[in-house]
Structures are given as C-alpha cells and as structure tokens.
C-alpha cells in the first residue's frame, strides 16, 4: 500500500517537527532534522514513483479525523502520485542541500521545527480526498511556510513579506473554501468522491472553476494575485525558497488541476478563455518583472511567476480541447503542462540552491554587489549555468522540451471550433514566445552579472566554494535536468496514466520511437530528439576543438582586457544588472512599468559625479492593491470614531436600534 507509506512518512515528518521543537537549539539538530527529512522524503518518493509507474488503481484510506461525520479521506491516484513525486523530489534535494546550508543558519530554532511540518503539509495536500482535509493541509502548508518566511523576522522587509503572504494565503484558502462549498452543495457532500458523483450544473462548475483559479492561482502566483510571491519567497532561507518556488507553487497547480479537470464536471469551452488569458499575461508580466530586478532571489521568484503562466497556458489548452472532445490534443496539452511542472521544480530548486550558495559565500543577494564568482566558485557556477540554460528553454536541456510540447499543443488549436479561442490562442502563443525569449535575456543578465565579469565587492572577491552537501544536491538536480532534456520520452510516458485518468486519452507511446526521439502526434508532423541534438553538439564541438588544436595553433597568452584600447581596471565600469536591462526597460518598461530615467549630468568643470536614476512603478500593486489598502484604511478610520463617543451617544445607538426593530415589527405584516 503506497498510500499507507506516504501517510506514514507524513506522520513521521510531523513527529520530526515536534522533535525539532525540543532539540531545536542544539548543535546536532540541523544534521538530525535534515538528515531525517532526507530519508523520509526519499522513502515517500519511492512510494510515489512505484505507484505512478506500477499501480493502475487508486488507493483509498479513511481516518476518523477531521469533520467527525465525514472523516479524513486520503486517496493516491496517478495525479496525486505524480505531484507527490515532484514534492518529494524537491523535499529530498532541499534536505540534502540544507544538510550543508543549514549549518550557516543563525537561528535554527526558528527554521527546524517548521521545515518538516511544511513538507508534511505539502504531502498531505496532494493525497487529501475531501474538502476539509484538503483545506486543512493546504492552510497548514501556508502557515508553516509563513513561519519559515518569518524566520529572519528582524529584517523589516521580511516581516512585511510574511504579513502580505499570510493575508493572501488566507484569501486564497477562503476562495477555495467557497469553491468546495459550492461543489459540496447545501447538504455538505464534502468528499471528493461525492463531488465527482454530484455532476454540478454548468454555471456551478464555472463559478467553482473561477474560485479555484483565484484560490489556487493566488498561491501559485497568477498575475494579478502574485504580489506576495516575490516578497515571501526570497525572504525565506534559500532551501525553503527553493521549496516554496519550486514545489509549493506546484502543489497549488495540483489544486487547480484537481478541481478544474476532476471535480468541476465536464468543462465548457469558455472556461479555458479565462485560464489562457491569465496564463499568457502571467508569463509575460512575470518575466518582465524579473528582468527589472537586481536582487538575485527576487529575480528567481518573479521568474517562477512566468513559469506558472506557461503551465497555466498548457492547462487552459487542455481544458479547451477537452471541452471540444479533442482528447488527444487535450492529453498533449496536459502532458506539456505537467512536464513543465516537473521541469520547473527541478531547475527552479537548482537555481535557488545556487543563490543560497552565493548567499552563504558572499552574504549578498544583490547582484550589483557580486560578479566574477565563476573564478571563486567554479562548481556552483557550472550547475547554476545548467539551471540557467534549462530555465531559458534552450535545447538540449529539459526546459525546452516542455515548452516545445506546449507550442505543439498550440499548433493543434486551429481545429478548435469556437471563435473566441481561434482569436485568443495565437495571441497567447505570441506571448509564450515572447516570454521564452525574454527569459533567455533575463538569465543572461542573472548569470552574467552574478558569476561572470569581475568581482564588484570585496565579498565577491573573497567568496569560497560552497560545501559538499549543497554541491551534491545541485549536481543531482543538474543531472536530472540533462536527463529529462535528452530522454524526455521516459517522462512523457510516465505521465500517461495521469492524462488517461483526467482526460480519457494519452499521448502516443514515446519509448518505441526511433532513436529515442519524442513524437507528440505523428513523425511527419513534428518530432524532437534531445539525445541526438546533444550528441551532435557535443561531437561537432569537440571535433572542432580537436581539429583546431591539432592542425592549427593551441597557443594562449594572458593579457589585460583590450576593451578597444580603453581598459579600465575599476570593476565599476562593467555593465550592472540595471544597465544590462536598460534597453529592454526602454522597450517594454516604459509601457508596463511607466519606467522613467533621470540623468543628472553636471556642467563642464563641475567635478561632482553624474547620476543616473531609473524609476519603476508596479502597475498591479498601484491599480489593484493600493486602492484596496487605502479603502480599508479609510473605512477603519471612519468606523474608529465610534470608539470615541459619549455614553449618551452610545445609548442613542441602542435606542436607534430599538426603534428601527420596532418599526420593522410595525410594518412586518
């Protein structure tokens, strides 16, 4: 029973967090907690994989917990198993990383107790099978991650981040609660099985879908509900940031998939319009935000927003195809989305680990204070580069495969009958292409400014390579990125049961295709072979190197940089993150962020330095959240006057209430 194993693992994690409370301050605590979490996560991962690959029937289990007359239902089906695998893989690698990284933690007693609980929360969400259990686990996950965000609460920004995060999380949970309330109906059929059986009316299903989009989307970081994400994810310790960005957002995606494709009944075609539009906007906005950042972890967090957008584009397509009964296309789109879920969890964790390594080595998150780290931390630099290539969707790594599949799904959509989609999908495709290109730009910036060039500060100059555990975790993930890039067929086939369960169709068997290439629909239509491309590049590259070194020269001389004859030794003359983004800021930022540049050029003869300042404004916050906050403040101020009345005025309130009620009575009949 894989499900029992999973539950046991969750229980073990909870117990572990209790233990952590006790031993939190002791020296060995870090090793114990993270080591134990690593073991448990690995076991759970094994269980999940075995279920995904071997078991066909879902396992069910009911415990006498939660709402008394319902009990706590758990269920492990293909979808849960897949996401469970994602969660556990992330958890395992994060624990491995933290074995080294956690040693640098200043206040371990604020991290250790919540870390295993956080893992347990995510595990329970994906196996929950009734509304109450789901929501409890969901909010428990938010709560523990909130505590982890507040671990370094003395930094004022972190406190604010935690606050925004918690409020948004509660908002999302309420939205989901309403969605479930809708699906459960007045007589409270709270188990998912009952909801599936209920076959809700189209309008009910649609409303539930919207609410689910709000609820799950706010946790996943759908624009415009993403505002908490770039605040909270960087604030947490890096291995937690990795989990939040790489895994927790995926759990949110799971929540959406579960409701939209499983519980909400047969979809109507126009549901997908909302999802697609939001997905496209999210993708582009996310990467544009990311490009404007110079805080490494915040850049990564914003980039998560972009990838969530890509995933939701895939899901939207799946909904659209399913609504029109194009099951194979739906299976393709869903598989693309899920594959991207997996890929993103890999390289986003990897990148956050890298940023964590940089953080411990230099104490800096701000790219403007880094640079040249490739000399000081070669291995970290290498794996980080792998992560950058993967997330930029460049072959032959894994990021490209899932985006390629998404493109293939988009190319199938002209056959959709409904006009709304006919017009929307190409635009979404353009947005997707745009975001892909911008992502590459973004990571050229991130990598170039952080690791390349010359060190900009003493801290960057004196950085040292990070510890073995961290490197092991990062190399593990980098290896998986490559594997998933050159042998995507394996992973696509592994996803087949999920598609079959949710859509009723699956992508064609990939493992049989010649040369291990992937063929989504038909070989004549489109195919891609990561392995061959990888081999070609490797061979031709090394061939060129070999030939040149043999037949031509292999001499090499070190000299100062030429730089058109004006070499300047000061590292300040390098391009910074801000200046690197300047062209793109001019092209897109002026529209999206109302970016303004102020140049203060001293007149000739004046010796004061010239100053350049670029101002950005966050459109989402300004248009949506600022008014809301202001409104609440105003309301609070006005109502607050009621605290300062005289007794007589309070009495008149009572009196007024009495008279009103009597009037109601008088006019009742």
């Amino acid at each position: 029973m894989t499900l029992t194993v999973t539950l046991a693992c969750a229980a073990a994690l909870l117990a572990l967090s209790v233990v952590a409370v006790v031993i939190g301050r002791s020296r060995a605590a870090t090793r114990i907690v993270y080591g134990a979490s690593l073991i448990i996560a690995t076991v759970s991962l094994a269980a999940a994989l075995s279920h995904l690959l071997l078991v066909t029937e879902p396992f069910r289990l009911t415990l006498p917990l939660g709402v008394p007359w319902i009990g706590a239902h758990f269920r492990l089906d293909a979808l849960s198993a897949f996401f469970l695998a994602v969660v556990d893989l992330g958890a395992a690698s994060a624990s491995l990383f933290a074995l080294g990284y956690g040693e640098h933690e200043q206040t371990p007693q604020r991290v250790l107790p919540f870390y295993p609980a956080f893992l347990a929360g995510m595990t329970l969400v994906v196996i929950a099978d009734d509304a109450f259990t789901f929501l409890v686990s969901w909010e428990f996950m938010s709560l523990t991650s909130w505590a982890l965000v507040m671990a370094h609460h003395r930094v004022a920004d972190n406190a604010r981040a935690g606050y925004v995060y918690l409020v948004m999380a509660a908002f999302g949970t309420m939205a989901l609660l309403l969605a479930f309330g809708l699906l459960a109906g007045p007589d409270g059929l709270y188990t998912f099985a009952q909801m599936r059986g209920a076959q809700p009316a189209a309008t009910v299903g649609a409303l539930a879908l919207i609410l689910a989009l709000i609820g799950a989307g706010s946790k996943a970081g759908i624009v415009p509900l993403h505002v908490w994400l770039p605040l909270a994810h960087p604030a947490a310790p890096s291995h937690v940031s990795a989990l939040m960005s790489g895994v927790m957002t995926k759990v949110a995606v799971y929540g959406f998939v579960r409701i939209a494709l499983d519980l909400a009944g047969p979809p109507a075609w126009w549901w997908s319009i909302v999802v697609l539009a939001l997905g496209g906007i999210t993708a582009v906005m996310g990467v544009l935000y990311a490009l404007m950042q110079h805080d490494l972890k915040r850049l990564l967090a914003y980039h998560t927003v972009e990838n969530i957008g890509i995933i939701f584009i895939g899901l939207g397509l799946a909904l659209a195809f399913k609504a029109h009964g194009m099951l194979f296309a739906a299976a393709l789109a869903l598989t693309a989305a899920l594959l991207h879920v997996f890929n993103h969890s890999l390289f986003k964790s990897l990148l956050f680990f890298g940023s964590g390594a940089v953080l411990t080595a230099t104490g800096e998150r701000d790219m403007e204070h880094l640079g040249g780290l490739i000399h000081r931390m070669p291995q970290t630099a290498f794996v980080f580069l792998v992560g950058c290539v993967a997330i930029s969707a460049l072959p032959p790594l894994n990021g490209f495969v899932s985006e390629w599949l998404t493109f293939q799904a988009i190319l199938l959509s002209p056959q959709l009958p409904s006009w709304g989609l006919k017009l929307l999908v190409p635009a979404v495709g353009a947005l997707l292409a745009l975001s892909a290109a911008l992502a590459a730009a973004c990571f050229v910036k991130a990598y170039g400014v952080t690791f390349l060039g010359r060190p900009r500060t003493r801290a960057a100059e004196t950085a040292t390579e990070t510890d073995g555990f961290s490197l092991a975790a990062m190399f593990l993930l980098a290896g998986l990125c490559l594997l998933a890039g050159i042998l995507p067929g394996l992973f696509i086939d592994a996803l087949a049961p999920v598609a079959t369960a949710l859509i009723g169709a699956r992508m064609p068997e990939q493992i049989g295709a010649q040369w291990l290439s992937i063929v989504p629909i038909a070989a004549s239509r489109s195919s891609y072979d990561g392995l061959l491309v990888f081999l070609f590049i490797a061979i031709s590259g090394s061939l060129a190197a070999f030939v040149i070194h043999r037949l031509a020269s292999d001499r090499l001389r070190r000299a100062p940089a030429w730089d058109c004859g004006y070499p300047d030794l000061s590292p300040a003359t390098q391009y910074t993150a801000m200046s690197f983004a300047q062209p793109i800021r001019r092209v897109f930022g002026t529209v999206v962020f109302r970016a303004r540049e102020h140049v203060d050029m001293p007149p000739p003869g004046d010796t004061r330095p010239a100053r350049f300042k670029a101002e950005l404004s966050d459109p989402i916050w300004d248009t949506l959240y600022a008014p809301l906050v202001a409104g609440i403040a105003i309301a609070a101020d006005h109502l607050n006057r009621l605290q300062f009345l005289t007794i007589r005025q309070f009495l008149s309130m009572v009196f007024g209430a009495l008279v009103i009620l009597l009037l109601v009575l008088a006019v009742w009949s």
Partner: protein
Amino acid sequence: MSRLDFDIAHLLAGLLVLISFIELYQDRLYALLNVYAAHALVLAASVAWQAFIQDAPHLYLTAAIALSFKAIVIPVALHRIIARLGIHREIEKVVGVGTTMLAGMGLVALSMVVMLRVTHGADPLAREDLAFALSVVLLGLLMMVTRRNAVSQVVGFMSLENGLVLAATGAKGMPLVVEISVAFSILIAFIVIGIFLFRIRERFDTVDVQALDRYRGERR
C-alpha cells in the same frame, strides 16, 4: 373585571404617559425632579389599584416601594446632590423641546401600532396597559438620549423603569414582580450613589456625562 376598574387603570396608565411628556418638557432640574416625583406617585397609585383589582396583596409592597423610595427618597437625594455639587440648574438639551416632543409623539404612536397588532384574544387591559407602558419606556429612553446632564439621564432611566413596573404589575398574576421592583430600586440606588460618589467632585465641576467621557477608551 368591571368596566370601572378598567377605566381607572387605563386612566392611571395614560396619566403616566402624560407625565412622561411633561418630564420631556422641563428645562429646570428641580422642576424635573418634582415632575418625576409625581410620575412615581402616579405609578404607586396605579400599582396599588392593580393590587386591589387583582387582589394580589404583594403588589401593595411594590406600590409602597414606589411611593417611599421613588417618589420621596430619590428625588430628595437628587435635590441634595444638585445642591451639594452646585450643578447649575438648567437642563442642557441635545435637541430642542419641540423636536423632542414630536419624537415622543412618534414613539407613542409607534408603540400603539405595535401593540394593536396583538390579537384581541389577549385581554384589552393587558394590551392598552402594555401600550402605555411601552410608550413610557420609550419616552424614558428618549429622555436619556436627548438630555446631557447625568441627573436628567438618571431621571430618564427611572421613568423608563417605572414603565417596566407598570407593565409588570399590569401583567396579571406575574410572579417575582416584587423582587424585580426591589432589584431595580437597588440598581437605581447604585446609579444615584455612583453619580454622587463618582469622585466627580474631585475631577469635574459639572455632572455632565460628556466631561466624564473625556477619556473614552483610547485617547486620540
């Protein structure tokens, strides 16, 4: 019961309402106190009459309390307080007498309407009596919210409570009436003592609840 009994009870109840209006009309504290004494007096009479027609002897006790305590002790005590605290003698109103009167009319009308919806099965005395009692209660409240001085507010509260007693005694055979009236007398005593002992002398030179409320929870 005979027609006469009913009429007399009715008359007394009506009289109470009338006196409540007169209270609303006052703008001198002493005068207000006298009027209130009259109010209590009429209440005592009405209670006694009820005791007589319901031949419920224990109600005489209530009547006695009303007579002695409310009609005599309290007004005298308040007279003394006003004298001792040197409260200046006119009543500070929130809204003018005219408006208050109109509001009072409205309230009486309201209570009538509400009461007349009661099915005629309930005996008429109960209904009319209740209607009057309700109006007295509402007028008392009205007085509390439209007058600024603590004293006049206390008077308002006491006439409200008279209305309650009227209702209670009007309810035929209601148990615990005496206890309730006693309890209320104690309550009122507390309030009066509170007015007196509230270290108000030490802090403020007027028994103005507003001044008392300068501290309202959180200073701004």
